[in-house]
Protein backbone atom coordinates (compact mmCIF):
# COMPACT_ATOMS: atom_id res chain seq x y z
CA UNK A 1 0.00 0.00 0.00
CA UNK A 2 1.47 3.31 -0.99
CA UNK A 3 1.80 6.13 1.51
CA UNK A 4 -0.82 8.88 1.48
CA UNK A 5 -0.04 11.72 -0.87
CA UNK A 6 -1.39 15.21 -1.30
CA UNK A 7 -2.16 17.02 -4.57
CA UNK A 8 -2.81 20.77 -4.63
CA UNK A 9 -4.33 22.99 -7.29
CA UNK A 10 -4.94 26.72 -7.09
CA UNK A 11 -6.92 27.85 -10.10
CA UNK A 12 -9.17 30.58 -11.39
CA UNK A 13 -12.70 29.56 -10.40
CA UNK A 14 -14.91 29.82 -13.45
CA UNK A 15 -16.97 27.53 -15.63
CA UNK A 16 -14.16 27.75 -18.17
CA UNK A 17 -11.79 26.12 -15.68
CA UNK A 18 -14.33 23.55 -14.47
CA UNK A 19 -13.23 20.68 -16.71
CA UNK A 20 -9.62 21.13 -15.57
CA UNK A 21 -10.58 20.67 -11.93
CA UNK A 22 -12.97 17.79 -12.63
CA UNK A 23 -10.31 16.02 -14.69
CA UNK A 24 -7.85 16.38 -11.81
CA UNK A 25 -10.29 14.79 -9.38
CA UNK A 26 -11.03 11.96 -11.83
CA UNK A 27 -7.33 11.17 -12.16
CA UNK A 28 -6.82 11.35 -8.39
CA UNK A 29 -9.59 8.76 -7.98
CA UNK A 30 -7.57 6.34 -10.08
CA UNK A 31 -4.57 6.91 -7.82
CA UNK A 32 -6.65 6.24 -4.71
CA UNK A 33 -7.77 2.95 -6.22
CA UNK A 34 -4.15 2.19 -7.04
CA UNK A 35 -5.03 1.71 -10.70
CA UNK A 36 -1.87 1.51 -12.74
CA UNK A 37 -3.07 3.34 -15.82
CA UNK A 38 -6.24 4.59 -17.43
CA UNK A 39 -8.10 1.95 -19.45
CA UNK A 40 -7.42 3.86 -22.60
CA UNK A 41 -4.70 6.49 -22.52
CA UNK A 42 -5.86 7.87 -25.85
CA UNK A 43 -9.43 8.45 -24.70
CA UNK A 44 -10.36 12.08 -24.20
CA UNK A 45 -13.55 11.07 -22.40
CA UNK A 46 -14.17 10.23 -18.78
CA UNK A 47 -13.91 6.62 -17.72
CA UNK A 48 -16.23 6.42 -14.76
CA UNK A 49 -16.93 2.71 -14.42
CA UNK A 50 -16.06 2.54 -10.72
CA UNK A 51 -18.71 3.82 -8.28
CA UNK A 52 -15.91 5.41 -6.23
CA UNK A 53 -14.87 7.63 -9.16
CA UNK A 54 -18.49 8.30 -10.07
CA UNK A 55 -19.30 9.50 -6.56
CA UNK A 56 -16.34 11.84 -6.19
CA UNK A 57 -16.45 13.30 -9.68
CA UNK A 58 -20.22 13.84 -9.48
CA UNK A 59 -20.10 15.43 -6.04
CA UNK A 60 -17.09 17.60 -6.81
CA UNK A 61 -18.70 18.88 -10.01
CA UNK A 62 -21.80 19.93 -8.11
CA UNK A 63 -19.84 21.69 -5.37
CA UNK A 64 -17.72 23.44 -8.01
CA UNK A 65 -20.89 24.65 -9.75
CA UNK A 66 -22.22 25.96 -6.44
CA UNK A 67 -19.04 27.88 -5.75
CA UNK A 68 -18.86 29.46 -9.23
CA UNK A 69 -22.55 30.30 -9.49
CA UNK A 70 -23.57 31.05 -5.90
CA UNK A 71 -20.53 31.78 -3.73
CA UNK A 72 -18.81 33.87 -6.41
CA UNK A 73 -21.83 34.78 -8.55
CA UNK A 74 -19.72 34.18 -11.70
CA UNK A 75 -17.21 36.84 -10.54
CA UNK A 76 -14.27 36.85 -12.93
CA UNK A 77 -11.41 37.32 -10.46
CA UNK A 78 -12.41 34.31 -8.35
CA UNK A 79 -9.94 31.63 -7.31
CA UNK A 80 -10.35 28.20 -5.80
CA UNK A 81 -7.90 26.05 -3.87
CA UNK A 82 -8.28 22.29 -4.11
CA UNK A 83 -6.31 19.92 -1.88
CA UNK A 84 -6.69 16.24 -2.63
CA UNK A 85 -5.54 13.79 0.02
CA UNK A 86 -5.11 10.47 -1.72
CA UNK A 87 -5.15 7.89 1.03
CA UNK A 88 -5.06 4.14 0.65
CA UNK A 89 -8.55 3.33 -0.58
CA UNK A 90 -10.00 6.73 0.23
CA UNK A 91 -9.91 10.25 -1.04
CA UNK A 92 -10.57 13.53 0.74
CA UNK A 93 -11.09 16.79 -1.11
CA UNK A 94 -10.67 20.13 0.65
CA UNK A 95 -12.01 23.01 -1.42
CA UNK A 96 -11.50 26.61 -0.34
CA UNK A 97 -13.18 29.69 -1.78
CA UNK A 98 -13.50 33.27 -0.63
CA UNK A 99 -17.00 33.85 -1.94
CA UNK A 100 -20.24 34.36 -0.07
CA UNK A 101 -20.74 31.79 2.69
CA UNK A 102 -24.01 29.96 3.22
CA UNK A 103 -25.71 27.72 5.76
CA UNK A 104 -25.34 24.11 4.62
CA UNK A 105 -27.86 22.93 7.20
CA UNK A 106 -30.51 25.27 5.80
CA UNK A 107 -30.43 23.70 2.33
CA UNK A 108 -33.56 21.54 1.99
CA UNK A 109 -33.61 18.13 0.40
CA UNK A 110 -35.25 18.30 -3.03
CA UNK A 111 -38.69 16.77 -3.58
CA UNK A 112 -37.68 14.21 -6.20
CA UNK A 113 -41.29 13.21 -6.87
CA UNK A 114 -41.89 16.74 -8.21
CA UNK A 115 -39.15 16.31 -10.84
CA UNK A 116 -37.18 19.38 -9.79
CA UNK A 117 -35.07 21.26 -12.29
CA UNK A 118 -32.80 22.73 -9.60
CA UNK A 119 -31.59 22.21 -6.06
CA UNK A 120 -30.25 18.73 -6.78
CA UNK A 121 -26.51 19.43 -6.49
CA UNK A 122 -26.08 19.17 -2.74
CA UNK A 123 -28.37 16.16 -2.63
CA UNK A 124 -26.10 14.41 -5.12
CA UNK A 125 -23.00 15.25 -3.07
CA UNK A 126 -24.52 14.19 0.25
CA UNK A 127 -25.98 10.97 -1.10
CA UNK A 128 -22.85 9.80 -2.89
CA UNK A 129 -20.13 10.60 -0.36
CA UNK A 130 -19.25 9.39 3.13
CA UNK A 131 -18.71 12.93 4.40
CA UNK A 132 -19.76 16.39 3.22
CA UNK A 133 -18.68 19.09 5.66
CA UNK A 134 -18.69 22.86 5.24
CA UNK A 135 -17.13 25.59 7.35
CA UNK A 136 -17.99 29.18 6.46
CA UNK A 137 -14.94 31.40 6.12
CA UNK A 138 -13.27 33.27 4.77
CA UNK A 139 -12.05 31.12 3.29
CA UNK A 140 -15.07 28.87 3.08
CA UNK A 141 -14.03 25.24 3.36
CA UNK A 142 -15.71 22.19 1.87
CA UNK A 143 -14.45 18.79 2.96
CA UNK A 144 -15.60 15.84 0.87
CA UNK A 145 -14.59 12.26 1.69
CA UNK A 146 -15.24 8.95 -0.01
CA UNK A 147 -13.92 5.53 0.97
CA UNK A 148 -13.54 2.82 -1.62
CA UNK A 149 -15.81 -0.14 -0.95
CA UNK A 150 -12.92 -2.58 -0.86
CA UNK A 151 -11.05 -0.51 1.74
CA UNK A 152 -11.28 -1.21 5.46
CA UNK A 153 -13.66 1.05 7.36
CA UNK A 154 -12.02 3.70 9.55
CA UNK A 155 -11.53 2.86 13.27
CA UNK A 156 -14.70 3.36 15.28
CA UNK A 157 -14.77 6.54 17.36
CA UNK A 158 -17.10 5.00 19.95
Amino acid at each position, binding site marked *: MSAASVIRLTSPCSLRHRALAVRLVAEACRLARDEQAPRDERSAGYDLHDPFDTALV*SAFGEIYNNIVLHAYGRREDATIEIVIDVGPGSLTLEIRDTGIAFDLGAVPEPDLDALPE*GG*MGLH*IARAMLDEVAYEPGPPNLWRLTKRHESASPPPSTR
Partner: protein
Amino acid sequence: MPIDFSRTDQDDVSTLRIAGTLDVNTAPQLAPVIDKLVDDRRSRVVVDLSGLDLIDSSGVAALVALYKRSRVHGGQVTVTGARDQPLAIFKLLRMDRVFSA
Protein backbone atom coordinates in the same frame (compact mmCIF):
# COMPACT_ATOMS: atom_id res chain seq x y z
CA MET B 1 -14.73 15.41 -24.13
CA PRO B 2 -17.22 18.15 -24.93
CA ILE B 3 -20.79 17.44 -25.96
CA ASP B 4 -21.85 15.89 -29.23
CA PHE B 5 -25.50 15.56 -30.17
CA SER B 6 -27.74 14.85 -33.12
CA ARG B 7 -31.45 14.52 -33.84
CA THR B 8 -32.94 12.05 -36.29
CA ASP B 9 -36.64 11.71 -37.12
CA GLN B 10 -38.34 8.57 -38.32
CA ASP B 11 -42.13 8.60 -38.63
CA ASP B 12 -43.45 9.95 -35.32
CA VAL B 13 -40.31 9.12 -33.33
CA SER B 14 -37.44 11.54 -32.84
CA THR B 15 -34.16 10.20 -31.53
CA LEU B 16 -31.88 12.63 -29.72
CA ARG B 17 -28.43 11.16 -29.34
CA ILE B 18 -26.23 12.88 -26.74
CA ALA B 19 -22.58 11.90 -26.27
CA GLY B 20 -19.68 13.20 -24.20
CA THR B 21 -20.45 15.52 -21.31
CA LEU B 22 -23.81 17.09 -20.49
CA ASP B 23 -23.17 19.62 -17.74
CA VAL B 24 -23.44 23.24 -16.70
CA ASN B 25 -21.14 24.22 -19.58
CA THR B 26 -22.66 22.15 -22.37
CA ALA B 27 -26.37 22.02 -21.45
CA PRO B 28 -26.96 25.52 -22.95
CA GLN B 29 -25.73 24.19 -26.33
CA LEU B 30 -28.48 21.57 -26.22
CA ALA B 31 -31.23 24.06 -25.36
CA PRO B 32 -32.09 25.04 -28.98
CA VAL B 33 -32.47 21.37 -29.95
CA ILE B 34 -34.78 20.76 -27.00
CA ASP B 35 -36.77 23.89 -27.85
CA LYS B 36 -37.22 22.66 -31.42
CA LEU B 37 -38.31 19.16 -30.32
CA VAL B 38 -40.94 20.73 -28.08
CA ASP B 39 -42.04 23.24 -30.72
CA ASP B 40 -42.40 20.43 -33.26
CA ARG B 41 -44.73 18.65 -30.80
CA ARG B 42 -43.09 15.31 -31.42
CA SER B 43 -45.27 12.52 -30.03
CA ARG B 44 -42.31 10.36 -29.05
CA VAL B 45 -38.74 11.36 -28.23
CA VAL B 46 -36.08 8.75 -27.49
CA VAL B 47 -32.98 10.17 -25.82
CA ASP B 48 -30.03 7.89 -26.56
CA LEU B 49 -27.36 8.32 -23.89
CA SER B 50 -25.19 5.33 -24.79
CA GLY B 51 -22.35 7.71 -25.66
CA LEU B 52 -22.74 9.93 -22.60
CA ASP B 53 -19.81 9.79 -20.16
CA LEU B 54 -20.69 12.46 -17.62
CA ILE B 55 -23.75 14.41 -16.51
CA ASP B 56 -24.36 16.92 -13.74
CA SER B 57 -27.53 18.37 -12.22
CA SER B 58 -27.67 21.03 -14.96
CA GLY B 59 -27.71 18.29 -17.57
CA VAL B 60 -30.40 16.40 -15.69
CA ALA B 61 -32.42 19.61 -15.49
CA ALA B 62 -32.24 19.99 -19.29
CA LEU B 63 -33.65 16.47 -19.78
CA VAL B 64 -36.32 17.01 -17.13
CA ALA B 65 -37.33 20.20 -18.93
CA LEU B 66 -37.66 18.26 -22.19
CA TYR B 67 -39.79 15.64 -20.42
CA LYS B 68 -42.07 18.17 -18.71
CA ARG B 69 -42.53 20.41 -21.74
CA SER B 70 -43.23 17.46 -24.07
CA ARG B 71 -45.78 16.08 -21.64
CA VAL B 72 -47.79 19.30 -21.94
CA HIS B 73 -48.76 18.37 -25.52
CA GLY B 74 -48.95 14.64 -24.77
CA GLY B 75 -45.46 13.80 -25.98
CA GLN B 76 -43.60 10.85 -24.48
CA VAL B 77 -39.90 11.07 -23.63
CA THR B 78 -37.84 7.99 -22.84
CA VAL B 79 -34.13 7.58 -22.14
CA THR B 80 -32.11 4.62 -23.36
CA GLY B 81 -28.54 3.48 -23.03
CA ALA B 82 -27.52 5.36 -19.87
CA ARG B 83 -24.51 3.71 -18.23
CA ASP B 84 -21.85 4.34 -15.59
CA GLN B 85 -21.94 7.81 -14.01
CA PRO B 86 -25.07 9.08 -15.82
CA LEU B 87 -26.98 5.91 -14.85
CA ALA B 88 -25.89 6.32 -11.21
CA ILE B 89 -27.14 9.91 -11.20
CA PHE B 90 -30.48 8.96 -12.77
CA LYS B 91 -31.00 6.23 -10.17
CA LEU B 92 -30.04 8.55 -7.32
CA LEU B 93 -32.48 11.21 -8.51
CA ARG B 94 -35.07 8.52 -9.29
CA MET B 95 -35.19 9.68 -12.89
CA ASP B 96 -34.94 6.08 -14.12
CA ARG B 97 -38.60 5.51 -13.17
CA VAL B 98 -39.63 8.61 -15.16
CA PHE B 99 -37.59 8.06 -18.27
CA SER B 100 -37.88 4.29 -18.65
CA ALA B 101 -39.74 3.08 -21.73
